């Protein structure tokens, strides 16, 4: 009797948690396939893929902004890795002066509310004609992503056994060759994780793009925002789903990329 009651309580609590977590996602998914849905009907009146054709028709706004978003995200990953791999290696290996202060500097964009910084960046960009350009948006996304890229890269390099690197050097490999053939491959899973994370952060970024990207750069989040504010629930739901799928996928697979020995060294 007591066991049955305990299970009932457990089931009800977990059910409530599940409802609170999945209810909002389910509601979004329903809007994505609803053709007609209005009060007081609890479920859509007619279902269909009508709006999917609209979103995915050739040369639609959605396809264009998805392409823009992916392009920006790829450039951002390239820029972040080019900056973060050397920086992460130096932070992990070298006896850097002011190491703590430097780590803290990379943390700043996460530790200070960034909205006011973004519109001041936009103000600076006017002088360089970077507003409304892909390059301007990539720069803003790079600063935002750099925190994760540098911290994860530093942790990934710190987790690589230093003896292996020394062995390669003792056998006559140059510093660069030792790095490229020994250290980098061993740190690759961590670097890979940070690359995926930076890609996602860039794909999802809204506020910085809102200030710097106007009027010419429309990424998928900006398109979704416009559709939502205009009351196009189906279009907003479909574009939101496109953004949701990679985020959830990353959440489910993160542990395969980020090994616990790397996680333990983040911020160390």
């Amino acid at each position: 009797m007591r066991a049955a009651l305990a299970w009932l309580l457990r089931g009800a609590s977990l059910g409530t948690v599940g409802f609170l977590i999945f209810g909002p996602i389910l509601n979004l998914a329903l809007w994505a396939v609803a053709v007609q849905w209005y009060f007081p009907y609890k479920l859509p009146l007619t279902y269909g893929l009508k709006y999917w054709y609209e979103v995915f028709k050739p040369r639609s706004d959605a396809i264009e902004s998805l392409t823009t978003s992916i392009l920006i995200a790829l450039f951002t990953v390239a820029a972040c890795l080019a900056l973060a791999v050397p920086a992460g290696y130096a932070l992990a290996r070298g006896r850097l002066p002011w190491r703590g202060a430097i780590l803290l500097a990379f943390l700043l964009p996460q530790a200070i509310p960034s909205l006011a910084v973004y519109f001041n960046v936009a103000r600076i960009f006017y002088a360089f004609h970077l507003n409304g350009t892909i390059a301007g948006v990539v720069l803003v996304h790079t600063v935002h992503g750099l925190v994760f890229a540098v911290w994860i890269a530093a942790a990934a390099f710190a987790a690589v056994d230093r003896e292996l690197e020394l062995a390669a050097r003792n056998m006559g490999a140059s510093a660069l060759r030792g790095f490229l053939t020994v250290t980098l491959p061993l740190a690759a899973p961590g670097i890979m994780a940070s690359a995926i994370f930076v890609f996602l952060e860039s794909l999802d970024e809204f506020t910085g793009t809102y200030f710097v990207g106007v009027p010419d750069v429309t990424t998928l989040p900006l398109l979704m925002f416009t559709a939502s504010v205009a009351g196009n629930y189906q279009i907003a739901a479909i574009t939101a789903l496109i953004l949701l799928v990679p985020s959830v996928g990353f959440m489910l697979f993160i542990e395969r990329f980020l090994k616990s020995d790397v996680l333990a060294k983040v911020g160390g």
Partner: protein
Amino acid sequence: MRESRLAMVLLVLPALAVVLALFVYPLSLSVISAFTTKAGEATLDNFIKTAELYRDDIAFTFVIVAISTAFIGATSAAIGGYLVLGENPRAVAVLKWLYRWPLFIPFIVAAQCMRTFLAKNGIMNNTFDTLGIIDVHDAVGLLDWRGIIVTFVWKQTPFVALLVAGAMASLDRATIEAARNLGAGRLRILVEIVLPQVSSAMVVGLILSFVTMLSVLSVPIMISGGAPTMITVDMAFRINSYSDYGVANALGLISYAMTGAAAWVYLRRGVASGGRM
């Protein structure tokens, strides 16, 4: 090692330069701009105008973010606590699988989910109606300040819970088992033994969430259109409608000050506990 210090500094320099040029420089520009007129003279007018126009919104923002932070803390303590103290392995596994889902979902998508879920005709009201708890015809949606809090808590709890649960998992279980053998209940073990030992992970997670919530523009616009609203919306309005960088930056400075206050509370607590955090 043969690697010279200079080489190491050179490796860090490009990344550091980008952060300085594109974050620290605009940040200092925003502080200076808050205290100067358009002509470049020193002034406090921006703050006087900000206080006149946005006093309510500043209070509203602080209350929203503070309540959300409290809920996020309580919920992640409950989730972490159940994961570490739960006696039923199957229920623990289910919760572990469940709670992480919103972790990487962007705010803008979370806002769109909630915009439909919390609406008068959303799944929440309709489910309660079906269960006979409310009548949806008399119900109102939660698309106001409550909706903003729900969205923030939904989105940020998994992040803090992940940090807290990680810290809890690496605790020495001997004290927990000892307390359990002495007959302490699970709630008491959580509050008196587990939580004090993970307080630094908890506070770091909460401060990062606090900062994040103060930077989000999409959620207040999409969840609650009306007044009062959050200062992020006011900043965007000052910029887009009036190009009024003075008042917008004064509001920005207030958001930095709120973060500073939160960090100060954290540091003071650290000193009070003898720096053991």
